[in-house]
């Protein structure tokens, strides 16, 4: 397999009332063609910002790419002209969002919005684009697609809207699809439908997916590889099975142990405390205050993501064999 997306040492800064804050720090991760990479972490860990950075949509101001590079098929995106990014967006790299309720423009029909996406990137007649939009809606499982196409977003349920978003996203056969918590706002049975659909789409279109989620269960069912994020950094990265069965970083371990599941009767392990605010990060490991294995060195040094075999983690305690 070949890497189609390569993020290298990416940093994103935000101006806040506490001054400039580094929201993303030294993030390096790659995406193979056709695979699913899960980005997992709690709110504010930087997983959505990573996605927006890839799309070239970090809101500026207050945000700003501080350092690093993002290469799509070898082409550097960070310094690319805006027009080039526009041509890539939607055509080669597409994205779907968390809130299907508000992600579609309320004053245009579903069809209009998909047709727009098609015609922006492909030399195609309006009528042909419309036929294709209906075909896409059918493909993503919208019943009576020809009629639904004339509907406005508010006339569709949340699940249907997310299907429309998916249809729009894959309309130009992108090579990368970023799905930012695509089911968080949906009910669990609808969530299952959407994930099943995403799986089929991936299989059929051969698109590589970056799946952003806070749910380890979703990772387990959907992802080939996982990167766990905490306070703007990746702290563990490996194949999904490796991370789920043999988590290395204390945070990953805690994250897995604190989920109430349908199989396990053990009492929940808590991670004490809260995620530190980004403006109050010290020199050391951001997780140190909540970590049972913390020692003096953890407070002084911020560990880098160090690979051990195929399994990379950023933890001094693991490196020193203290766990």
């Amino acid at each position, binding site marked *: 397999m070949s890497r189609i997306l390569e993020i290298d040492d990416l940093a994103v800064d935000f101006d806040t009332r506490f001054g400039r804050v580094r929201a993303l720090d030294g993030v390096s991760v790659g995406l193979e063609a056709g695979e699913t990479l899960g980005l997992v972490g709690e709110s504010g860990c930087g997983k959505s910002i990573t996605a927006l950075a890839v*799309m070239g*949509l970090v809101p500026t*101001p207050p945000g700003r790419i501080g350092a690093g590079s993002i290469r799509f098929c070898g082409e550097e995106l960070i310094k690319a002209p805006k027009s080039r990014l*526009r*041509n*890539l*967006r*939607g*055509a080669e790299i*597409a*994205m779907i*969002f968390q*809130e299907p309720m*508000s*992600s*579609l*423009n*309320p*004053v*245009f029909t579903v069809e209009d919005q998909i047709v*727009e*996406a098609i015609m*922006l*990137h492909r030399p195609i007649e309006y009528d042909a684009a419309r036929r294709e939009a209906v075909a896409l809606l059918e493909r993503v499982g919208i019943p009576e697609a020809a009629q639904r196409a004339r509907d*406005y977003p*508010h006339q569709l349920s949340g699940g249907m809207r997310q299907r429309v*978003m998916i249809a*729009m*996203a894959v309309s130009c056969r992108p090579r990368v699809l970023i799905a930012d918590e695509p089911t968080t706002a949906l009910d669990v049975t609808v969530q299952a439908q959407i994930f099943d659909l995403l799986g089929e789409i991936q299989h059929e279109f051969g698109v590589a997916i970056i799946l952003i989620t806070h749910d380890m269960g979703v990772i387990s069912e959907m992802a080939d590889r996982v990167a766990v994020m905490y306070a703007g950094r990746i702290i563990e990265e490996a194949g999904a099975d490796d991370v789920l069965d043999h988590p290395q970083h204390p945070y990953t371990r805690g994250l897995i142990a604190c989920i109430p599941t349908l199989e396990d009767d053990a009492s929940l392990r808590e991670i004490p405390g809260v995620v530190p605010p980004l403006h109050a990060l010290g020199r050391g490991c951001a997780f140190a205050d909540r970590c049972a294995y913390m020692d003096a060195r953890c407070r002084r040094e911020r560990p880098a993501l160090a690979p051990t075999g195929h399994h990379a983690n950023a933890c001094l305690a693991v490196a020193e064999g203290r766990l």
Partner: protein
Amino acid sequence: MSGSYLIKRLLWGVLLMAGVVVLNFLLIRLAPGDAALVIAGEMGGASEEMLASIRKEYGLDRPLMVQLGLYLADMARLDFGQSFYFNQPVTGLIAQRVGATILLVIVAQLLAIFIGVVLGVLAARNPGGPMSAFVSVFATIGYAVPVFWTGIMLIILFASVLPIFPVEGMQSVKLREAGIIVKSLDILHHLVLPAFTLAVIYLAQYARLSRASMLEVLGSDYIRTARAKGASEASVLFKHALRNAALPILTVAGLQFGNLISGALLVETVFNWPGMGRLAFDSILRRDHPTILGVLFFSAAMVVVANLLTDLAYRFADPRLRGRT
């Protein structure tokens, strides 16, 4: 669009108008002072017999509720009675003037919305930029200037320093006999200053409102979606954002209509614009009740119609409201 919605709105509009009539009628009849004396005063003094005959002629001797009933019945036939002061049918008096007022109000409103929205959109593109600051300052100034004073200042400026626009009236005397095109151009020429004066206040408000509305819309998820599919910045701004940002502007434009008519009243007085403002002013000073009632009725009717149109426009512009009752 749902027909029963329209019926409901129309019925409510008629009801509102009836309410306006009743309220105004009662207010005027209950206010201290004798209408017969006022009429007699216009005729140049009065004896008791004269007063009695005036009361009889104008129906002022009947019980209040009877007067109200009769008045409502007349009203339904659009008969507002005879003006005490002008000694003409009120309907005719208003008919001569209502056109000028509507012209002034609508031109001012369109001017204000158009310029206001353009300024607002430009400002929203860069919320920290100079255009944004200008819109904020301009909006605050526009809000704070008394409209009649702006008019007077413009008159001082254009009457003496820069005489390119007429500062008074609606038509030039020497062009009375000219063709329709020349006459229309002449009216437009006269319209410039009054319309601009009236527009300034609302222009500032619309600019500020569209800036805020655009900023809010630009931060919404569907704008991010539009960008994510590679839409150009112009398309994002004018196709995706403005259609949505226009909705609150439309609402406010509808609500402002009553204020606009109030403003027109002052502007007409300042520029001697031959609309209903002058008529209102005169009839109020002379306590010419039929005329006051007529003017109030017509102004309220204009507001009701404007609100109805705004409502329909809103429902057309926002698909979420179509087909609702």
